[in-house]
């Protein structure tokens, strides 16, 4: 690259300064749908059945949550992940349980269940009960499980991205071989925290994968109304890290992409992955979704990642219809049991309001 001005002769013979052109070649990876199979990924039939079961569990759990919200068992906001399940399940499959870390924004039920948190503790948290994963202190947007490497559940758009970067920093500092996946929505890309965090991760060579779950809408604002550059994966260029674009409606594409990127992270190379997906429900329960057409929604439903995997299982003769029915029944029963569990779990007692503010046990609160 040269910025040296070249001299150009003009009509009157006087030299005139002009500019050079800088040409750069940018390359990105793309993981389209229908490219990868369970065999190409080296997944056993049991693995694929597990993946299917986990995605279905997220779907049924959230359908039931919506119902419970309607019955006022659940308060506050409820942001459903329905449609995006291939991302949580497919990416978590690349992580080492007990070593690696994951952190996301407020649409967090799917990731929690993908990481192995139980339906019981998740439903109890939605109900605001003591047996909830955050003891009734966090609610829908703030699921946490230290045991499962679930670092939240964060309600402020973009605020968790620097935190994720610090989780990865600790993995590097301790040299424990761990990796962090940071999930964020397309809306979070335009918070400064995203840009500060990616730059820091690249400077310090942190073991982290930033995953943009591009579900096309930041609440009601379409990507092209919020982003001057709608290819969000291209943000990686500014931070000198690799970037990929992935079809988020195909769990195998997600699996392959995340496996590759988690491997990079483990070698100290942070990276950015944009996974294109779609949320079938509104931003939250109060959103009628008038910013998109019924036709668009119906077309996207034809790409449903769960139905897609189910068709694959049947076409490839991996699971019988009877076994699928059994699996379906099991998942429904697990979710139904979680509602009973949550309902029977007590509300936190009033004195619990002072618990968990400080580690210091005798902190002198003003009363």
């Amino acid at each position, binding site marked *: 690259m040269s910025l040296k001005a070249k001299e150009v002769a003009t009509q009157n013979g006087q030299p005139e300064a002009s500019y050079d052109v800088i040409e750069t070649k940018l390359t990105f990876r793309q993981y389209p749908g229908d490219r990868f199979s369970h065999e190409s990924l080296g997944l056993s039939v049991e693995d694929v059945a597990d993946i299917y079961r986990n995605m279905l569990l997220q779907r049924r759990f959230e359908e039931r949550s919506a119902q419970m919200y309607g019955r006022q068992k659940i308060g506050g906001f409820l942001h459903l992940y329905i449609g995006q399940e291939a991302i949580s399940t497919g990416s978590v499959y690349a992580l080492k349980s007990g070593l690696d*870390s994951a*952190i996301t924004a407020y649409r967090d039920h799917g990731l929690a269940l993908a990481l192995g948190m139980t339906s019981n503790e998740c439903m109890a948290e939605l109900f605001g009960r003591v047996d*909830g*994963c*955050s*003891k*009734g*202190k*966090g609610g829908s947007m*703030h699921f*946490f*499980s*230290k045991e499962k490497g679930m*670092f*939240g*559940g*964060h309600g*402020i758009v973009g*605020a*968790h*991205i*620097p*935190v*994720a*970067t*610090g*989780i*990865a*920093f*600790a*993995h590097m*500092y*301790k040299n424990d071989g761990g990796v962090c996946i940071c999930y964020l929505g397309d809306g979070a890309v335009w918070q*400064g*925290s995203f840009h*500060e*965090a990616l*730059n*820091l991760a690249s*400077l*310090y060579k942190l073991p982290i994968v930033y995953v943009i779950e591009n579900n096309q809408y930041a609440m009601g604002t379409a990507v092209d109304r919020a982003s001057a550059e709608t290819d969000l994966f291209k943000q990686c260029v500014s931070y000198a890290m690799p970037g990929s674009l992935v079809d988020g409606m195909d769990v195998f594409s997600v699996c392959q992409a995340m496996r590759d990127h988690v491997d990079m992270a483990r070698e100290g190379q942070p990276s950015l992955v944009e996974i294109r997906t779609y949320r079938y429900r509104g931003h939250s329960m109060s959103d009628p979704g008038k910013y998109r057409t019924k036709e668009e929604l119906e077309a996207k439903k034809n790409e449903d990642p769960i139905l897609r995997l189910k068709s694959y299982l049947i076409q490839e003769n991996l699971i019988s219809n009877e076994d699928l029915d059994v699996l379906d029944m099991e998942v429904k029963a697990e979710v139904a049991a979680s509602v009973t569990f949550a309902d029977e779990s007590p509300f936190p007692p009033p004195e619990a309001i002072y*618990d*968990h*503010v*400080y*580690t*210091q046990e005798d*902190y*002198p*609160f003003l009363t």
Partner: protein
Amino acid sequence: MAELQIREAIRAAMVEEMDRDENIFLMGEEVAEYNGAYKVSEGMRDRFGDRRVLDTPISENGFAGLGLGAAMNGLRPIIEFMTWNFAFVAIDQIINNAAKIRYMSGGQFSFPIVFRGPNGAAGQLAATHNTSVEALYSCFPGLKVISVSNPDDAKGLLKSAIRDDDPVVFLESEFMYGMRGEVSEAEDYTIPIGEARIAREGDAVTIIGHNKSYWRALEAAEMLEADGYAAEVIDPRTIRPFDWDTVIASVKKTNRCVVVDESNPFASVSSEIAFQIQAQAFDYLDAPVHRITARDTPAPYAKNLMEYYLPSTEDVYRACRAVMYLD
């Protein structure tokens, strides 16, 4: 006892703790290669290397949040802000994440982190570089807030802050980094968080002040001594949690109180102190609690206006005489 500058006392606290615990690291703007904008971290990169003393880009929101994530995942970060004025762009990390994630996770994650740097008036830098933030951060349960006035407290309290498993906002002063004072050489010297220091005993009036305001309080007490009155001077040292017992006991003895607070007056630390005194010692008061604060304006640039803006020793002295009904 050794005589140290406040900057040296802060450095000694960090160095001793980093020697003791491998999980502690220091991160901030210009802390490593430049040796610190105010030379607080001078020599620390040479001692601990790039792994444990890290320069950052000018991304306060980014590196404050990075510190929090590192704390969630087992480390004990010290995050330096070049001044607390620059931490306003990181305030979401401190208020929403540092103060609240432990609570929202049902106690699963804790935040053993210190955010430190100079606070309050720093000279003719105009309004954006002269903010006092102690009242602001003290608003939020989940944080602890410390503000020190001398080298001994700086060392003893910073060591405690670094060892504390809760997030601590540690407030210093650009004006005071060069201030010298005796520092205990006791091995493993720490001062408990949440304990005020009675710097001078007396029975005529209680004067409360932290950081620079402590020195205004002490100077006013010396003027009152010349008038024949013994003022009791208290340096709270920790703002959250505040040592109410020491203050209330003192006011019950002196029956009068003047609070010196370099912050803007509305909803300041002085407001809460005055409220607690009326709630807990109303019957003991012989005069309304008086306070001397910065003016209710942004900090000005002009030298004469800046002098007028800040609490002066003369203001404090006059306020004490007023609550003693001497004038």
